[in-house]
């Protein structure tokens, strides 16, 4: 009984804590957001053709519920009193940024911070499109790329080969420093990391280069031309399709896992063999019958 009381007391102490209010609000928002999502889901599928004005309006509704807490009622961004940015202003980030952030599940984020992990998306494709349309209406910014922007389907075989080789050089120059030589990701300062690109879709890779999400620098069209971006994506896709010629890739992280494998499998296995070689075989009490 006393135990119960004490734990109840501890809980209520936390309830009065400074973070509690924030948590309650977030929980409430998530809950309403979830219910709203469920409702909108049914309405959206009921009416397939949504006019662009309707889409913006729908996006604004979603925005108010799920995004405005950090990004402000009109996407103007929110700063704390001591000047820390909670959510950046969104005018001018463009539809591409929204499609990337929401489409990879990075937004809405669980807690503010420079490193935003991707997670299962919270919105359907239509909702993401509506949000993107709304944010795009706040100010001119990069649009969601079309498939023709990043596909090498239309190229001849030799052009394709050239695009892949060129993309490889651009990738190794601009991207591998953070994302590693086969896109396995890498560490950044203070606990940050450049994510693994093994299963990121072409559109999202393109959008990431275009908009520089979170801590990643931009590779906007004035920096890396659309063809060059296409080539990088073509190279990454060619790596995915390429068989692993030498056997299992050990995560594509370079010499550290290789050294680990040499010790655990190599030395471990050989010491196992040595133990077997030197072990005494079964013995018997029988005497040898001399012929």
């Amino acid at each position: 009984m006393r135990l119960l009381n004490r734990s109840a007391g501890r809980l209520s102490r936390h309830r009065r804590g400074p973070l509690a209010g924030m948590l309650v609000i977030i929980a409430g928002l998530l809950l309403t957001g979830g219910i709203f999502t469920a409702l909108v889901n049914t309405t959206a599928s009921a009416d397939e053709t949504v006019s662009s004005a309707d889409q913006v309006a729908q996006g604004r509704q979603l925005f108010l519920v799920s995004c405005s807490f950090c990004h402000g009622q009109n996407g103007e961004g929110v700063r704390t009193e001591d000047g820390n940015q909670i959510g950046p202003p969104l005018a001018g980030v463009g539809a591409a940024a929204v499609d990337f952030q929401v489409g990879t599940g990075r937004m809405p984020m669980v807690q503010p911070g420079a490193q935003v992990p991707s997670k299962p998306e919270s919105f359907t494709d239509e909702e993401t499109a509506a949000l993107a349309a709304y944010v795009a209406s706040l100010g001119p910014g990069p649009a969601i790329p079309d498939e023709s922007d990043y596909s090498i389907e239309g190229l001849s075989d030799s052009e394709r080969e050239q695009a892949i080789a060129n993309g490889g050089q651009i990738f190794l120059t601009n991207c591998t420093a953070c994302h590693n030589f086969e896109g396995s990701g890498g560490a950044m300062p203070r606990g940050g990391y450049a994510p693994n690109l093994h299963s990121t879709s072409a559109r999202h890779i393109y959008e990431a280069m275009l908009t520089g999400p979170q801590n990643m620098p931009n590779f906007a069209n004035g920096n890396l031309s659309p063809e060059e971006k296409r080539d990088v994506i073509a190279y990454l896709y060619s790596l995915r399709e390429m068989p692993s010629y030498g056997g299992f890739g050990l995560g594509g992280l370079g010499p550290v896992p290789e050294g680990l494998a040499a010790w655990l499998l190599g030395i471990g296995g050989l010491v196992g063999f040595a133990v077997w070689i030197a072990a005494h075989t079964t013995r018997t009490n029988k005497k040898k019958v001399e012929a």
Partner: protein
Amino acid sequence: MSTPPIDQAHDAGHDEPVDENLPARDDLFANPGLEEHHWRPTDVDPKAEKRAERQVAALFALSALCTIGLLVAYVTIDSDDTVGDLGAQNLAFGLLLAGALLGIGIGIIQWARKLMADVEMVEYRHSAASSEEDRAATVQALADGLEESGIGRRPLVRNSLLGAVGLLGLPAIVFLRDLGPTNAQVVKNPPFIGSGLEHTVWKKGMRVVRDVVGTPIKASDLQIGDLVNAEPEALFNGGEDGEPLEGVALQVAKSKGAVVVVRMQPDEITPGKGRENWTVDGIICYSKICTHVGCPISLYERTTHHLLCPCHQSTFDLADSARVVFGPAARPLPQLALEVDSEGYLTAQADFDEPVGPSYWERG
């Protein structure tokens, strides 16, 4: 437990045979001698023996099969064939070769373990040292030889010989001199443009161009947060008749000339002393070569303006003259002064005002 004094003196170095049934040093128990030999089932049971024989032969046969498989795989498997997403050729070669080798290895060892005689044998040791007489004789021979040579009595001969032989070591070092020119020589007679540790190919008016493609960069094309991995234009037109640089000239130029260009809000930059005019509208340019041991760095964090080296994690603050904020590097990255030419393209105001890359003794 206190340390009891030892009751017996050591007998190492003595050559007389010791009765090993007696406690030799301070053994608490007499040495029981080798344990009685027990036979293996394969020694006493002909059936077990046959079984082991078949087992070993089967392993050798398995090895032979793998070898034949390996030869077949050599002619049948193509380098593009796959098993799942693994390359079939390497996998088949590796596993079949492993089978062939392990079959023989395990077979031989099984043979030794099960069938070869396994009675332990005893061999006696000798002290590593030679016998007293041998040693005395050797020392005597050595002394006689040295005496007869007169090397002790004739210091003039001895010392002049030592001097002459010692001097021969010098050519061995001196003749390595032409392994390469020194930094000073390279500066005096530059084999390529921008030769010498204190210089790069950058000079006033040289355009900053994108790496790999070589296109010039218009200041107005860059957005806040952009990172460009850039090179001096000379890489692409610095050769004879405006040809791109090639070979060693290219490698040397690249290894010192590579830069990173980033654009941030102009008010975020804290310009270094005398560097107030080195940026264009928030566009700032630094050497890409780490001042620690020379890895190229371009792990840029857009929001913090930090640049991280992937080799040893030195971190530089690009908004603040590339000051070292973390890691083993001791010096900031050299900054390249930027301006725009008449067409609006980024160009250098001058070469770097300090050597790029790792420190060295004369660097100062």
